[in-house]
């Protein structure tokens, strides 16, 4: 039962990241050089990546493996999310190296917190029992709370931090209450089976109704409470209200991290829980998720129309996209474990990566565009097409992608998601999704219009971007377009990852 070297190897990516984060924080005691912090952080991420690739090879050869007495499962599904999280963290850190100037003298702490949170998210993707899910969720959330409240001089970040903290704590309470019910109904916390042979929730539930008060209802209550708890992390209506406030108030790089890495891991764990643990239960989760998806994207898109702050608008857009992703979840849960092919899960995984590229591009562009003035109103973007050509182009490409116009990854991603929905017989949901894209075109294109068609109100001088900012903009824009033209490669990887969950 003890910890073996194999266990350590299986969590080597997380370990490397944690070590990297610690080194980064400690390096702050010695030197306050921003470049040093960044280099150390990227070094840590590079080692993480290397280990993750090694694990991918290993899993490819030997199949999924569980570690630490079955509390973690290392399969391709988890590794896919780990790549995504690590890549996102790297891009966020590079893009914010200029922005982090205003965190002085706590630049290294900022970087360290991002890495800690990333480590938590990576663990979350690999969590194999309910308690590991909870612990890694908190590990991922608490650093972000601190990050959201990072700028001391303004009230908005503090407000963002308080709101995020309180709502995430409430959501954790819901989640745990739901977990407690699931535990009570099944007698186990195991989501994914492992080498020890302990029964999993799915197996326990498969043996018939448990001998506890409200047996069947307990499972239902547990699943619904857990959905509510995850709903906060996913920005799912009706638990979405914190999202715009936090996106607007928190420092922009934190918003970028929250919108992409955080969401990816949360969706991963929802998929795992509802597919592996509750997939066999008779309840119709698909209808629940389909309804939530429809409501979430509709509300997100409609409220986004009236926004005047770019970051707040991106917050609502994040809500809307949570809705699109829930389409995939609804499609996955529609089938039950037996008949499902990997299409639904792989479409969610593909969209998570594409969405990350688009959202990062949008946030990075906003970082550059608001760098000097600090003015985040949409009107302030007027004339940016001339003042900051690269950032404006990146934002335009990202927004067209989020709308779902080809040839961007956003189109391909929506194609796959709606594909999955129609494949599961949810044609109406695909129609709702497509009509929602039309609504979203209105506000996304509105920003593009402001950037390119309006003359700047006051200052019309060029807005320069630092090298790090330009680099990340190029990378994300290239990703949006390349994956839009040749989605096949990533889709294949996503399918492989999804099949790890299915088998």
């Amino acid at each position, binding site marked *: 039962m003890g910890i073996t070297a194999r266990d350590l190897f299986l969590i080597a990516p997380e370990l490397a990241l944690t070590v990297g984060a610690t080194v980064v924080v400690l390096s702050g005691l010695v030197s306050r050089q921003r470049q040093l912090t960044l280099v150390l952080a990227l070094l840590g991420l590079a080692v993480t990546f290397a280990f993750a690739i090694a694990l991918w090879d290993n899993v490819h050869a030997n199949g999924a493996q569980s570690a630490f007495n079955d509390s973690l499962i290392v399969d391709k599904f988890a590794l896919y999310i780990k790549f995504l999280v690590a890549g996102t963290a790297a891009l966020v850190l590079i893009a914010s190296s200029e922005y982090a100037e205003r965190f002085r003298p706590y630049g290294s702490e900022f970087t360290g917190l991002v890495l800690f949170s990333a480590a938590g998210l990576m663990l979350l993707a690999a969590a194999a029992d309910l308690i590991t899910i909870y612990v890694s969720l908190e590990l991922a959330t608490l650093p972000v709370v601190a990050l959201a409240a990072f700028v001391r001089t303004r009230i908005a970040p503090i407000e963002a931090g308080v709101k995020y903290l309180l709502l995430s704590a409430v959501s954790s309470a819901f989640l745990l209450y739901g977990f407690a019910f699931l535990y009570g109904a099944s007698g186990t916390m195991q989501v994914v089976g492992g080498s020890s042979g302990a029964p999993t929730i799915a197996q326990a539930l498969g043996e018939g109704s448990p001998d506890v008060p409200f047996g069947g209802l307990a499972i239902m209550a547990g699943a619904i409470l857990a959905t509510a708890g995850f709903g906060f992390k996913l920005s799912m209506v009706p638990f979405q209200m914190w999202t715009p406030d936090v996106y607007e108030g928190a420092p922009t790089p934190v918003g970028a991290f929250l919108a992409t890495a955080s969401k990816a891991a949360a969706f991963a764990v929802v998929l795992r829980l509802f597919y592996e643990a509750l997939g066999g239960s008779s309840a119709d989760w698909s209808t629940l998720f389909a309804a939530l998806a429809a409501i979430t994207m509709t509300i997100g898109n409609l409220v986004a129309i009236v926004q005047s702050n770019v970051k707040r608008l991106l917050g609502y857009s994040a809500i809307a996209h949570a809705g699109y992703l829930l389409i995939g979840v609804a499609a996955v849960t529609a089938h039950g474990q037996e008949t499902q092919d990997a299409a639904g899960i792989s479409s969610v995984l593909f969209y998570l990566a594409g969405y990350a590229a688009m959202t990062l591009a949008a946030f990075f562009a906003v970082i550059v565009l608001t760098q000097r003035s600090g003015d985040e109103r949409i009107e302030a973007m007027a004339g940016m097409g001339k003042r900051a050509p690269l950032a404006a182009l990146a934002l335009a490409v990202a927004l*067209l992608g989020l709308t779902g*116009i*080809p*040839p961007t990854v956003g*189109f*391909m991603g929506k*194609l*796959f998601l*709606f*594909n999955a929905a*129609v*494949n599961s*017989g949810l*044609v109406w949901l*695909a*129609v709702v999704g*497509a*009509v929602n*894209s*039309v609504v979203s*075109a*209105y506000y996304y*294109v*509105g920003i593009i*219009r402001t950037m*390119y*068609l309006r003359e700047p109100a006051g200052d019309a001088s060029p807005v320069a971007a630092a090298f790090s900012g330009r680099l990340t903009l190029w990378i994300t824009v290239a990703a949006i377009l390349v994956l839009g033209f040749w*989605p*096949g490669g990533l*889709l*294949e990887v996503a*399918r492989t990852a999804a099949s790890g969950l299915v088998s």
Partner: protein
Amino acid sequence: MLTAITFVPMIGAALALAVRGSARTTRLIALTTVLAELGLTISMYVIFNAQGDTYQFVQRAPWVSAFGIEFLMGVDGLSAPLVLLNGILGVAAVLVSWRVETRVREYFMWLLLLQGAVMGVFASLDMILFFIFWELELVPMFFLISIWGTGRKDYSAMKFLLFTFLGSAFMFAAILALYFSFPAGERTFDMTALIHKDLTNLIVPSSLVFSGFLVAFAVKLPIVPLHTWLPDAHTDAPTAVSVMLAGVLLKMGGYGLLRINAGMFPDELAAAAPLLAVLAVVNVLYGAFIVMRQTDLKRLVAYSSVSHMGFVVLGLASVGAGTAQLDGTGLNGAAMQLFTHGTITGLLFVVVGLVYDRAHTRHIADMGGLSGRMPLIAVGFMIAGLASLGLPTTSGFVAEIMVFLGTFPAYGLATALSAFGVVLAAGYILWTAQRTMFGPPLERWAHLEDATRVDVAAMGVLIVPIFVFGVYPALLTDVFDAGIAPIIASFAEGASLVAGQGG
């Protein structure tokens, strides 16, 4: 070859943007591109063998193999003339843009991109590829109208975008429903394969799928009451864009109706024929009556487009006659109308644009006696006007007479009422000519100059096909026949199936 036809304009677009030189250089690049494109399309059209295979110049390459999406291009008798039309109009559009002075490089970039995207629509035989080009065309249109337009250009551009996008949302869902109606392995986006499949037993009622496509194409064509974006977009767009919009973009709608709604859903189309006949009459008469009270020259031409597109719908309704009498005359007329209206209305918009360039007004009441000042333009206007009202020896006559002949057996009353639209057209065209071109010359227009050589070339490019195909329509109808024949065959097939079941 079709790949070249699609991508030559896109390469030209990239060149126009990349080469930094005088405005003249950019114009010459654009002109070279569209002339090369015209050469390619003409040679394609000449090589196209109306007696040969149904689909010619087919190119097929796997693209996203996981979903069976292919890069599949090819033309049949239906699309070949429309590709030619797009080639012709591209030249005219560049020539009438000779006087554009603001942001020249971007302007020609978008214009060429637009041409390339429309080429893609006509040349794609894969549903997804078709859809991608269909959406791609929105982006250049949006920028062209909102940057280089006049009047309420923002509003019009957005309205255009949202209407089309809404329509395509339904098309998207319909495409996916079509794809998933078949068991795995038989699923395909290949139009050439879908047309031979039995589409009566889909996962959703096939009438819904039919309606999804119908809505998308009805917005584009446009069919009343989905037409309201058209007058706005036309009025506020720059001349070349109006030419492209009336000339080829509307034709995408008609092309889709013929290719998909008629080609794949013969039974549903036959069932919808009475409704289409009514809509056609409404389109023709409503459009014509609205034209009468227009004071803006461009808006007048725009509404005349609505009226004329009614004939296309009427031609489609001819399938209501039942297979016994169905010889394809009506459908052929509809296809013919697409082509001829493209050249004729393109010419009308060119002329209106030339007048506007000189007089800086489109207000009909302000004009009068212009023929004295600008005889060449007046000649162009008269040719376009007479062709538009269907004067024999112009191609307009051939198309309309075919529609009437084809539809009369099915819906006599509707045909007669629509024919009344021709009378109205004669009325408003001649009345407009009299109010603008003729009458006493006005003092205020004494300084106006006649068409330059470039302008004459722009008009000439469009006048030639009007007469060539008017005097010798077989050049066009033979090719269209080759495209319509399979559609007629599918109607006969459906009827024999029904008869077989009955017996």
